[in-house]
């Protein structure tokens, strides 16, 4: 090139607006003020505005109405819904670490199992009240999560997936081994009297189904809300940054190792919570029942099908993995449901990698834009000072095109 004159110094100090780099074919930006990229009308909602609150209130009404309606269904249906909620909670946990932090875990069956066995053992062996076992299950699963996340200090990608796989595989082995506590391979049965709804609810032992329905629904909503907040918080930014580019995340001040370990911990805690509820719902546990690798695969399938790193994905995915095997006519987890899971998993990756919730999200975002209240108004109606200058050599282009 040869060293040309230092052409850049003689810029008048601070006078000009920031140099706008000609950035090539920037497509017309989606203006958040009502026009979609394709020019279609978009509903613009400013966060925190009255319209936004109205939409939120509408959502709450819809959710409550749907739940009320669902609770009126036949007992076995209500049981299925409860199962969906519990699986959904487990997937919300998985989503944090796999979806938002980008660490594929195929060992979440272990967290689910740890939560389940914590509650099972405490209730069956020590006569604890079911609800009081929840914090214990959560704390233990959190600790296991930290432990599983610990290798992520040094291990990445595939290697970490392998560690989680091994954890998932070891769990039933250890349960079988710890026979005195867990009942070993024979399983653990919790007397249904111990699982009756608390007295203050006024519900009898026979109404355990409806009780668990509401408990699971409430916990699911709580967990979804927490997860949404978390993902949007500073910590969540760190998780997503770690997923997308570790080195850049570290350079931006994200403590990558700490973020991964904690994400694993929180994720494990939430999935463990689901396990705890599962014991209250099902009443009988066995190491080869719901805590094998197949459970992990079921959770991953649900997550991928529902939509990785989406808000509603876990619920949609849970509904799918609970109802899908039934559609194929096999109620249990026989070989056919394994084939179905395998086929569904692969198909989804091919035809709809963003999942059902992801697809819905795209559809909604084309029609509704929620604009943060603090966003500066775009150039169009801002004071002229902030209007970007035209690209410095746009004239050049025109001249050459005219030739």
């Amino acid at each position, binding site marked *: *090139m*040869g*060293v*040309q*004159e*230092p*052409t*850049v*110094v003689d*810029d008048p100090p*601070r006078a*000009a607006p*920031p*140099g*706008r*780099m*000609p*950035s*090539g074919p*920037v497509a017309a*930006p*989606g*203006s958040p003020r009502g026009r979609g990229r394709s020019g279609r009308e978009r509903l613009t909602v400013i966060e925190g505005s009255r319209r936004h609150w109205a939409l939120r209130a509408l959502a709450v009404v819809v959710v409550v109405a749907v739940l009320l309606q669902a609770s009126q269904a036949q007992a076995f249906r209500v049981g299925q819904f409860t199962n969906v909620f519990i699986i959904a909670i487990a997937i919300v946990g998985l989503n944090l670490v796999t979806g938002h932090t980008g660490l594929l875990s195929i060992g979440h069956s272990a967290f689910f199992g740890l939560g389940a066995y914590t509650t099972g053992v405490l209730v069956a062996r020590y006569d604890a009240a079911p609800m009081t076992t929840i914090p214990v299950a959560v704390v233990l699963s959190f600790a296991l999560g930290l432990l599983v996340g610990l290798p992520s200090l040094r291990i990445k990608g595939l290697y970490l997936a392998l560690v989680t796989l091994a954890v998932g595989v070891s769990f039933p082995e250890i349960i079988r081994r710890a026979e005195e506590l867990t009942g070993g391979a024979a399983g653990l049965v919790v007397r249904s009297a111990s699982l009756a709804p608390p007295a203050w609810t006024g519900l009898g032992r026979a109404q355990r189904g409806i009780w668990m329905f509401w408990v699971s629904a409430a916990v699911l909503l709580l967990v979804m809300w*927490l997860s949404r*907040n*978390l993902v*949007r*918080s*500073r*910590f*969540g*930014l*760190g998780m*997503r*940054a770690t*997923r*997308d*580019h570790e*080195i*850049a*995340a*570290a*350079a*931006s*001040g*994200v*403590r*990558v190792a700490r973020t991964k370990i*904690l994400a694993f911990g*929180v994720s494990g805690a939430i999935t463990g919570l689901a396990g705890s509820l599962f014991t209250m719902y099902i009443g009988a546990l066995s190491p080869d029942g719901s805590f094998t690798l197949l459970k992990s695969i079921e959770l991953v399938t649900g997550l991928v099908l529902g939509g990785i*790193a989406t808000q509603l994905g876990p619920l949609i995915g849970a509904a799918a993995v609970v109802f899908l095997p039934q559609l194929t006519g096999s109620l249990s987890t026989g070989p056919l449901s394994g084939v179905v899971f395998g086929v569904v998993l692969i198909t989804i990756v091919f035809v709809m990698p963003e999942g059902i919730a992801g697809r819905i999200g795209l559809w909604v975002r084309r029609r509704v834009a929620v604009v*943060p209240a*603090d*966003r*500066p108004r*775009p*150039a169009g109606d801002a004071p002229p000072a902030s209007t*970007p200058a035209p690209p*410095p*050599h746009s004239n050049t282009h025109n001249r050459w095109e005219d030739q």
Partner: protein
Amino acid sequence: MSATTRSTDPPEGHGTTAAAPTSTAAAGDRALRLRDVTITFGGVTALDAVSFEVRPGRICGLIGPNGAGKTTLFNCITRIYVPSSGEIRWGDIDLLRLRPHALAGAGIARTFQNLALFGAMSVFDNAMVGGTSVSRVGLTSGALGWPPARRRQQVLRDRAWHLLDRLDLLDVAERPAAGLPFGTLKRVELARALMSQPQLLLLDEPAGGLTHSEVKDLGSLITSLRDELGFAALLVEHHMGLVLGISDHVVALDFGRTIFEGSPSEVRDNPDVVRAYLGRAA
């Protein structure tokens, strides 16, 4: 993992540690000092007693042939490599004792040679990540949406919007970074780096892949931001127009040694630099 807090609140808080800058130009009083930095890889000396200084608010250009040790030096400062001997001090902080993620908290931010952005995240969120080190919102308060935590986060959000506006990125704020044009992404990186209100900006070949006029715009952008925000910068770059145009001070390396240090106007007449780096066209 160190449990100590190196970060302070955004401006409204009462920063107790000396780490993060709480105001802009006034706080830029630290210098980066390298003394006798030496590093060897399996017997090969990649850096041989390199010493120089980046003074507060100044731009220091670092040039040299490929393999001269510029990237190695950069990696020493950004804590990817550990020098065999020597000292890197940032004000009164011994940089070699910090972990990589703590650099941002200490007021040092960087951009990357080949772009390192968070592709699936929006431009706005990319910028927000840059503010990680100056926010103290924890996991629990974040998950619960605690109002004080929200207020603290709001300060950062305002700063991010301001920077996006300043760097002409408002139009693409909601778009995922992946898929935006190269020149735009370079500015996103700059916005992210500036979010932590750095006192020292490490720029790794920012002109790579830009045309002359784009480079010129980038140069004026960097200097005007420097005048406004008061950071110092270490600029590794082959584009001599940019280096000589915006640097206050230039250091040239060859075979791991400093072969020149001085003002930009002297570089092109220096026989060592011409022989080792610039070649005939100088």
